[in-house]
């Protein structure tokens, strides 16, 4: 696996030619949407990486006194009828319980700009930490899917014949399962094991020094949860897209003169695939990878929403919690969803930009 990753890295190095860079820059200058996409994605990645420096509160800190506070600009003031009680019993007046009007405030505060959830936890902080889970699963899942899919696809396309038939029939079978259904079944079977690693921003003391500077309390969660099973499952249900694209590229590249020349010179198949086929097939794979990060983030949020999540700091998980309060506190479900939409829009814009700049031939919409 490590070996294959190294091959991929080397291919990436070789794949970006000066011409490609020129195209990238030209497309970027011409397209405002591409800039928006890059800004969104960079912001989300930074937020995910440095979550303890972006979140105003500990996302797990409960405060029942501040439960269901609305976001800024949505303070409400309602009156409700309550029965008057004296010495613990209801006061009866003219045969009916005496009532009085009481004002109920739902106050927004600067301390919680996006409001609080049912347990009084700060939604903004939870959205910041949720970015971590989404980005981790999105990027790790895509890398894993790419390594498996590209290896299978290049092998199938390069050798052709029976190897190709067998691998591609296998891919057909995979495609007959809706990815969400297969993912649910696999997570249901395997459970949702997760691994905790220490958060370098917190353990290095960086958050302890920086947070007091803006007046925020310290004591953030000390570990990052990597939902391992979810990463493996999303890769398992998505590798087949990479395999199809890589196979298509390899099928045409194996006819190229330089591949034939290398073979005539006695280069091994492994060497030819790694040094000649992969670098020339890398462009559509990168474009697909960007779209796949978006697709996997959506898949992860769906899994978490349905309760198959390795961590409780996930956008989908919070939407499921917020759904229980849909008739009283819309913001609990709304805010994490907006974060998903923003992230996926950014990734799609980034993908469009890369596609237009790197590979004018791919043409509009792919099957992803």
């Amino acid at each position, binding site marked *: 696996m490590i070996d294959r990753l190294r091959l991929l890295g080397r291919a990436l190095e070789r794949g970006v030619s000066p011409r490609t860079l020129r195209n990238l820059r030209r497309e970027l200058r011409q397209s405002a949407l591409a800039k928006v996409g890059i800004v969104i994605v960079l912001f989300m990645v930074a937020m995910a990486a440095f979550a303890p420096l972006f979140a105003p509160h500990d996302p797990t800190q409960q405060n029942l006194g501040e439960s269901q506070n609305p976001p800024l600009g949505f303070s409400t003031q309602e009156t409700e009828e309550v029965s008057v009680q004296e010495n613990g019993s209801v006061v009866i007046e003219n045969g009916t319980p005496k009532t009085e009007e009481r004002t109920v405030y739902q106050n927004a505060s600067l301390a919680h700009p996006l409001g609080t959830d049912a347990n009084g936890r700060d939604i903004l902080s939870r959205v910041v930490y949720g970015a971590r889970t989404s980005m981790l699963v999105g990027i790790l899942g895509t890398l894993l899917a790419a390594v498996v899919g590209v290896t299978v696809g290049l092998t199938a396309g390069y050798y052709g014949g029976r190897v190709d038939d067998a691998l591609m029939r296998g891919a057909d079978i995979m495609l007959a399962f809706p990815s969400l259904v*297969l993912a*649910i079944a696999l997570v249901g079977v395997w459970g949702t094991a997760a691994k905790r690693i220490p958060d370098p921003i917190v353990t290095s003391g960086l958050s302890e020094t920086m947070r007091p500077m803006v007046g925020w309390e310290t004591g953030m969660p000390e570990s990052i949860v990597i939902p391992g099973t979810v990463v493996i499952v999303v890769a398992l249900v998505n590798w087949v897209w990479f395999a199809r694209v890589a196979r298509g590229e390899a099928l045409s590249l194996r006819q190229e003169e330089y591949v034939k020349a290398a073979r005539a010179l006695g280069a091994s198949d492994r060497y030819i695939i790694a040094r000649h086929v992969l670098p020339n097939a890398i462009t559509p794979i990168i474009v697909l990878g960007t779209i796949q990060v978006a697709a996997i983030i959506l898949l992860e949020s769906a899994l978490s929403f349905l309760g198959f999540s390795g961590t409780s700091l996930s956008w989908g998980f919070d939407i499921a919690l917020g759904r229980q309060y849909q008739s009283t506190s819309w913001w609990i479900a709304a805010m994490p969803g907006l974060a998903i939409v923003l992230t996926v829009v950014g990734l799609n814009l980034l993908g469009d930009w890369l596609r237009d700049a790197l590979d004018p031939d791919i043409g509009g919409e792919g*099957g992803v």
Partner: protein
Amino acid sequence: MSLARFLLKRTLQGLFVIWGVVTVVFGLRFISPGDPANVLLPPDVSEGTRQQVVAELGLDKPLYVQYVDYIAGLLTGDMGMSLVTRTDASGRILGKLPATLELAVAATVVAVVIAVPLGVVSATRRHQPADYGATVFSLAGISTPNFWLGIMLIIVLAVQLNLFPTSRRPVGIDDAFAHLVAFQFGLAWSELTTWLWHVTLPAITLGTYFTALITRLTRSGMLEELGQGYVRAARAKGLPETLVRYKHALRNTLIPIITVVGLQLGTLIGGAVITEAVFNWPGLGTLIINGIQARDWPVVQGSIIVIGVGFVVLNILVDALYAYVNPQVTYD
């Protein structure tokens, strides 16, 4: 190759894929921890009863015998016994199928009815406000998780404005149809309207991604076709612009769209699973999710197989349709 031979070949490939699906699904149970007999029996049961139940379920036989038995059962429509309700699994699955099918069809109707005109308008009024609106809508549409969209629709249209019910499916379109053929028109009409009232939000929820996708495809396809020589020729010979757009350009645009939509049917069914969860819609998705939580493997396996078979059959139909609308297609 003739059309008939092409379809025969596709059918054989489809059967192979279905066999693969069945094999993978059969294997699912064996990578899962936990013995099916434990789901079925109370923990304090005697070893003798346990052995008896294991034998009844056929779990004591060698793996390949179980595999052959399972496939033989499937061929006769037997998917095993639900471990939870202890009834026929295939009966439960078929009972839930209409709810999922009607939801998927309603979503597809919503998508096609909105997306194709929107894509055409977007392409023919390029770089005008309508085009920008359609582009922003389609970008947002492919980027929005449908379960979240469903909850937002519930909050705004059902909870706040009280226009639609928040969830559930009190009647199915199949009930309305049954009363229609029994000439009970009043009953059929009231059931149909109740059904429409309940299906609207789930259909929008499930259909939005497809609406966005088909809008994008129609727009880019129309732009490409409108730049072709035959369009210029049609205009030059004085054909009315509406005829040029809708009879010539749109027709050619729709051909590749059929293929992509066919490939995306899996996404539609996956989306239906989660849409059902949001709206308490009693279909296959709800059955699968509850089945996994209760470790009711026969029901989960059967449902996934039904979905896989549906996907394969629909893809063959899409191929046939594709061959029908596009006389230039070569069958290989």
